[in-house]
């Protein structure tokens, strides 16, 4: 006899955090989320929505109602490839791509994302690298990200690296901007960092690790 398991589906008002919508509304591009028609154009247009746990429409709907936990833990925000298809088509003029960025920032800020998940790591590494050299070198970036997330993948990735290297398309010594300019760049970023530090509100979400989704964890969704 098969066993039936019941999942609680009710949501209580006291579980909601409505301030999260205000946070997104305050970021550029997110102003109009309250006028979302829930028409689903974004979800229909998104090349990745078929793999998402929540479509962009649902994320916006949940955001407005304060389903903060579900939204920032959503795998969908990391699947967003910034293709801007949703933004171009949205009949309410919502910059959905910017909303996805805002959600990524909130998630990174609050440390909510799948453990060993490469994208946030990539984002942070990328940032560090820019502060160092002013430019990005894919070789070192990929190496650093892989080391932090999936060291085993170095094994499967090296053939491509080798092919690129053979054709002179991989440089181990990255291009960097001249020293004085590099100092300038760091200075510029620091000005903003300190400006921002005071803006950061303390998180009222319990930092959670979310589901342990290794990059390969998406496989089952893909064969849909």
């Amino acid at each position: 006899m098969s066993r039936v398991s019941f999942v609680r589906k009710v949501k209580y008002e006291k579980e909601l955090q409505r301030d999260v919508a205000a946070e997104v509304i305050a970021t550029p591009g997110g102003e109009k989320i309250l006028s979302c028609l829930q028409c689903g154009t974004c979800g229909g247009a998104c090349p990745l929505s078929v793999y998402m746990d929540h479509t962009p429409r649902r994320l916006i709907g949940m955001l407005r109602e304060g389903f903060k936990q579900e939204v920032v833990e959503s795998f969908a925000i990391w699947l967003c490839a910034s293709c801007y298809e949703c933004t171009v088509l949205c009949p309410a003029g919502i910059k959905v791509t910017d909303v996805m960025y805002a959600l990524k920032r909130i998630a990174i800020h609050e440390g909510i994302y799948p453990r060993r998940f490469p994208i946030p790591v990539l984002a942070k590494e990328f940032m560090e690298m820019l502060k160092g050299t002013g430019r990005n070198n894919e070789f070192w970036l990929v190496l650093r990200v892989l080391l932090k997330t999936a060291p085993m993948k170095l094994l499967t990735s090296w053939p491509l690296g080798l092919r690129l290297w053979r054709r002179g398309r991989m440089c181990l010594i990255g291009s960097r901007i001249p020293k004085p300019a590099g100092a300038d760049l760091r200075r510029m970023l620091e000005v903003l960092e300190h400006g921002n530090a005071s803006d950061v509100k303390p998180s009222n979400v319990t930092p959670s690790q979310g589901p342990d989704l290794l990059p390969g964890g998406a496989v089952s969704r893909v064969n849909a």
Partner: protein
Amino acid sequence: MNGNGNKSVKIGVYVCHCGTNIAGKVDVKALAESAAGLPGVVVSREYKYMCSDPGQDLIVKDTKQFGLNRIVVASCSPHLHELTFRKTTANAGENPYLFHLVNIREHVSWVSDDPAAATEKAKALVKAAVARVFWHQELQPRRVPVNPSVLIVGGGIAGIHAALTLASAGKPVYLVERKPSIGGHMAQFDKTFPTLDCAACILTPKMTSVKQQPNIHLMTLAEVSEVSGFVGNFKVKVKRYPRYIDEAKCVGCGECIEMCVYKEGKYPNDFDLGLGKRKPIYMPFPQAVPPVPLIDPATCIEFKSHKCPKGCVEVCGDRDAIDFSQTVKEVELEVGTIIMATGFKTFEPRRLPQYGYGKFPNVYTSLEVERLVNASGPTLGQVVLRDGRRPEAIGILHCIGSRDENTNRYCSRVCCMYSLKLAHLLKEKTGAHVYNFYIDMRTPGKGFEEFYKRVLEDGVSFIRGKVAGVTTWAQSPAEEGKLILRVEDTLLGVVRRIPVDMVVLSVAMEAQADAENVRRLFNLGCSAEGWFLERHPKLAPVDTFTDGIFLAGCCQGPKDIPDTVAQAGAAAAQSMSLIDKGYVEMEPNTAWIEEELCSGCHVCVAMCPYTAIHFDADKKVAVLNEALCKGCGTCVAACPSGAAQQNLFRDEQLFAEVEGVLV
């Protein structure tokens, strides 16, 4: 001295609460109190609703009791209630122009955040009015007779209905239609929602009556080119384009079409939206009124080379109706009132390339499908695709060009209903599976929701989600050769790919492409989207800001046939009420010239757009013809010696008002 000669000025000030509309923001008590202290003010009150009977009675009673000879009411816009309170003033036995209205609702309470600032602003405006009304004088409105003829622009169902209503009441009507036949969009439909009665069956008799009604002078292939004059006495020029067939001589037998050297139709038929073909000489559609063919000079051989054997002329024979020498003619009409019924156009879906219209042949607009399902349409009611196939699955996409920041923000109001109609008709005619993709289903109307139920029971799939795009990019053999719709089914929470054979785009209704020009021609207001502006959205929905011009049908905004007809009836009634009264009273805001002050400088003469001022060479002064003056005040502003003055806007009045607002 004041506007009253030497009689002492006694002013009554009345502040309206308008429920909480004003009182909720403006401190009406403080406002009335501050007014009480102004020079000349004898009595100052506030009251809940000044426009109500008790409110007006208050003014009448006070006037009698205190001997008031000036009235100031602080309430809403003069465009709403100036007339009301002028009447009240008259009822109180005073000249109605000794009154002034202060707008503290639209211009103060509704647009202010801060109550203190709102009250202060209201006080200033009231003070200005009190200062101004001091200089008011007794005036008499001018009466001008109303010409009983009516011009109706546009011969869709709106124009037709208004014309018939007026004509049957004995009013002469000029019906001007741009196309070769009247009928408008309704003539293109097969069935109409929600009752599914046949459009031709209900429209054709009305179109024929237009032809038969002796009071209606129908002008097709015609456009208004110039409008001058004013309510009661408009002068209109109409351009009549040649049909190349004499309507008076033609009997409508259609033999000429048969005998045209073209054996088959070759050119896309406008009425069938290019789905059917016509010859150079053709009848727009079988039920056309007037039932007279026309020749398209761009395609007729005779026009191109003068070498046609002219089968048409030969067969027409003694009737001699064909006349290649016709040219554009201009006629002049005099009418007292005008009804605008120029309708709408459908949205051009090429503006949204994601739907593939114009790229994929089997993507249609709803209007094209109206022709396809029409028994007298290009396919005689057979629904066959452009590639000859019969569709097995059909997707109907709502809100194309409506409710979209990228195109039009508004809801087009009829497309949900006509999409339901087309779903029903297409299913009935083809047996195909039909999907309707909607954002919200809008069926507010008598019998509309019942119709929705009926279509639900037909087994049509209703998917709540806006289709993001149409592609032919197949992911599986089942999708091969199909049009694939990608949509998020928002109720079920899944993204779906749905292959269909035919896509119907439920395109929005938009203002006519030339609405901007037409609006200028008739001096109308226009909403940002191009719809003609009614005087008040609820209380004067068929009037415009230009007296004597009324609106009917979709030129005012999207609506269905029942509402169009109702509005056309209302426009006819408004027009009739002016005609039957026989005269209109004109605002006495004309200018005049004080001979003694005039220095003879000529400046004003050139200023007047209506040539109301000429120069009297003997007296060496400017002379103003009051009958021609429309009261713009331009000459007054230009006169360097203060000789030109304008009633209701005399220098003293305006200067006092300016001083008053600057407290």
